[in-house]
Structures are given as C-alpha cells and as structure tokens.
C-alpha cells in the first residue's frame, strides 16, 4: 500500500477554454496510486485515470453503482441536472444480481441483428433531417437541427411513439439537454411531461400492442408496471445526448481531418477520442478495497474517468492523435463490466449513417465559425457542443 499522501486536486475537472480531455489528466495518470478530489458538496472522491485501473474498478464486486449508498458521488446535485436515479427501473443505479433482471429484459432489443434491422429507419430519419436543413438555406446549427433530433427520433421509433407525437417528444427531449438555453424549471417540467407521456404510451401499448420495444417488454411480463417508466426514461436519457454529442464532435473532427471522411473506422475512433461520457460511471466502495495500491475505504466515492483511460499511452499508441486506423479497440467509452452501454451497437450505426449521409449529401459542409470559437459543454455531465454552426 502506498505510503505517500494522496494528491488532492480541484473539482470540477473540466474548465472553460480548455481542450478535452483536460491536460491535467496526464498528470493524474503519472501520479503513483490515485488522486483524490472533493465534490462541491464536500464529499471525498477518488479519481481513476489509468485504463487498467478503470477496467478494474468497473468489474470489482466491492464497488457499487447504487446511489443510495453513503458516499456515492452525486455530481448531478452539483451540476444543475435533475436527479433521475430514484425512479423505479433506473437500473444503472443497481448492482448485480438486482440489476440483471432489467438488463436481460432489454438485451434482445439491442442485439447486433436487431440493430441491423433498424438501419433503413435510421437512414430515413437522417435523410429527412438533411432534407430539412438543405431546404432551409445554406447554413444550420448542426446540434439543434441534426445531432439532437436524429437520436431522439430513432428512440421514438424504437419505443413506438406514434408519428403524430414525435415533434412533442423531440422538443421535450431537446429541452432536457439544452442546459444553456433552458432553465432548471423548464427542464424539470420537460422531465415531468415526458414521464407523463411515457406512462400514457405504456397504457396505450397495453391495450393496442404494436411491433415495438414497449409492446414486447409488456408481453414478456418481466417488469412491473411501476418499473416501465424508469426503464424507458433511462433508455431515452442514455441514448439521446450521448449519441448527439458523438455525432456533433465527430463531424467537427472529420472536418478537421478530412482524409478520414467516408471511412467507417472513424466511428470507433470518435468514441475513444472524445469519450463524451467521462463523468457518467460513478461508483462507491461498499467494502474497503485497494485500487492501484491505494486503499479506498467503504463509503468513499470513485469516479473512473473514461476519457483519461482512453488517452492512456499505456493502452493506446499516440493516444492524442485521431487515428481511425489504430488497431487497439479496447476503449472504455461505453464503460466496462455489467453496466457497459446496452445501446452501443445502435449508437455505432447512428454515427456511421449520420457521418456518411452528411458528407455525401453536403460535400461542401464546413464550419461557420473558427474551431476555437465552438461552444464546448464544459458545464454539463457529458462532454459535447452547445451549438455547431455550419455552412455549405
């Protein structure tokens, strides 16, 4: 066990005007053992930055995902994001074996085969958004006009939201993530409206089942009625802004590295390179546990920083280079262990279709502002862009 005092670093980790991942992750990684920080609420939290250590934390049975445990690092309390974790069915906040019943019920919806069947619908959605942008003129905000609506519409299709309700669904999901353009109160209202809508949709599907995820979940009888809305909200939250941010950041990166346009390997490298869900896998030790030679006591919070792990030179050669031809594929952008992103194959297909169709249909696509002026979301849980002004 290390005898040196752990180094204490400041929170938040992301600051305005800095590149992402923050350069100081490099220092943390080179520091023996782990570094420690304090959340604005005063809680102690260990930061894990090496690839090997992040994987070890995310598979350790003494480390829990359950926010009900004392010491859990609730960063959403400190970042103006409404807490969703207490809704029944919010199974990312459960550990095995309780967690597994939910995961198993949903796995069939996200298999490689099932996602392949969704391709034509995703292509149609992407084409329609591009048609709308082209019809509207010679410029757009690629976040509001493309990156956010595409995954929201894909989730609508998956859930079986009737076409007539998709605008409502899309506008409310957009309010949830537009942390600069909406107030806490507006986001709270949008959450309530979406929950109410989802409950109504479940009631409709009970009476009139269709060929959709909700109908199949109901037919399987694996979830209780009061768990359905939590599960569905989770799918929505987990699949929406994450995908949108990957689409937007990936387009910027492809505009800066045009030699990779048209190469599908850019999808996997975008996931690694940008690691938008850096602050998503939050954990707490439920027993004393050693990570990287550091004793973590029961009740202390742990944040495995996936962006730091994905830029670890021990795991990835030239980690700061955007290189879709790299052979290392073991990034942890989707997390690791039993909670690894359930929708990862859907995200991959959405990103691939979005990039391909955008650059095919709009070959003159370019940034409308200098890249250094792009508004990065340093203030959200996820890394992304508030806006992405483009022209053609």
């Amino acid at each position, binding site marked *: 066990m290390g005898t040196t005092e752990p180094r204490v670093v400041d929170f938040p980790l992301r600051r305005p005007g800095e590149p992402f991942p923050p350069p100081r992750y490099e220092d943390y990684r080179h520091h023996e053992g782990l570094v420690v920080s304090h959340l604005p609420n005063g809680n102690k939290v260990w930061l894990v930055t090496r690839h090997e250590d992040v994987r070890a934390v995310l*598979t350790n049975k003494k480390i829990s995902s359950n926010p009900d445990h004392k010491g859990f690092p609730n960063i959403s309390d400190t970042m103006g994001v409404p807490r969703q974790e207490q809704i029944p069915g919010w199974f990312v906040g459960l550990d095995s074996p309780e967690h597994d019943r939910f*995961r*198993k019920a949903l*796995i*069939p*919806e*996200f*298999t*490689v*085969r099932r996602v392949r069947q969704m391709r034509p619908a995703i292509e149609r959605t992407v084409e329609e958004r591009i048609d709308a942008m082209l019809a509207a003129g010679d410029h757009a905000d690629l976040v509001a006009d493309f990156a956010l609506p595409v995954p929201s519409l894909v989730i609508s299709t998956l859930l079986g939201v009737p076409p007539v309700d998709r605008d409502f669904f899309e506008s409310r999901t957009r309010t949830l993530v537009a942390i600069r353009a909406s107030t806490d109160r507006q986001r709270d209202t949008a959450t309530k409206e979406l929950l109410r809508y989802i409950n109504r949709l479940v009631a409709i599907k009970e009476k009139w089942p269709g060929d959709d995820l909700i109908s199949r979940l109901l037919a399987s009888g694996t979830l209780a009625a009061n768990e359905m809305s939590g599960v569905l909200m989770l799918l929505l939250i987990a699949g929406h802004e994450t995908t949108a941010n990957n689409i937007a950041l990936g387009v910027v990166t492809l505009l800066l590295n045009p030699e990779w346009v048209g190469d599908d390997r850019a999808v996997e490298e975008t996931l690694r390179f940008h690691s938008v869900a850096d602050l998503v896998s939050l954990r707490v030790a439920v027993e004393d546990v050693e990570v990287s030679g550091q004793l973590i006591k029961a009740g202390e919070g742990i944040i495995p920083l996936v962006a730091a792990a994905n830029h670890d030179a021990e795991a990835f050669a030239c980690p700061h280079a955007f290189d879709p031809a790299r*052979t290392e*594929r*073991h990034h942890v952008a*989707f*997390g*690791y*262990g*039993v909670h*690894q*992103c*359930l929708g*990862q*194959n859907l995200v*991959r297909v959405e990103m691939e279709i979005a990039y391909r169709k955008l650059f095919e249909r709009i070959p003159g696509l370019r940034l409308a502002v200098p890249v250094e002026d792009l508004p990065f979301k340093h203030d959200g849980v996820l890394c992304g862009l508030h806006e992405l002004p483009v022209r053609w």
Partner: protein
Amino acid sequence: MRISVDPDRCVGAGQCVLSAPEVFDQDADGIVTVVNARPADDEAVRHAGELCPSGSITLHED
C-alpha cells in the same frame, strides 16, 4: 484455438459478434453463442475475447 463461453455471465454487449461474426452469435435473448468453437488463431477472435465487458469469453491455446 478453442473458444468457450459462459452464457450466465454474458451481458449482451454484442462486441464479440461485431468483432468475429463467423465465430460468435447472439441467441433470441441476445446472449452469446459459439458458431465455431475451433476457429483459426485470428486477431478478430482475440479482440472479441479482450473486448468482452463481462469476461464471458475464454480463449484456449489447445
């Protein structure tokens, strides 16, 4: 090379099917199945073993 899998551990991430579809598949429940338990030693098969988030895949050198 020989492949064995533990379906009870599988969390259905599907990374093995993406990496080596000629060796791995998912059943109707989305759980891993082995299509070819004796594949040639291949980078894609090794990737599948390394990427599995739940440690469900074991590669044997025999």
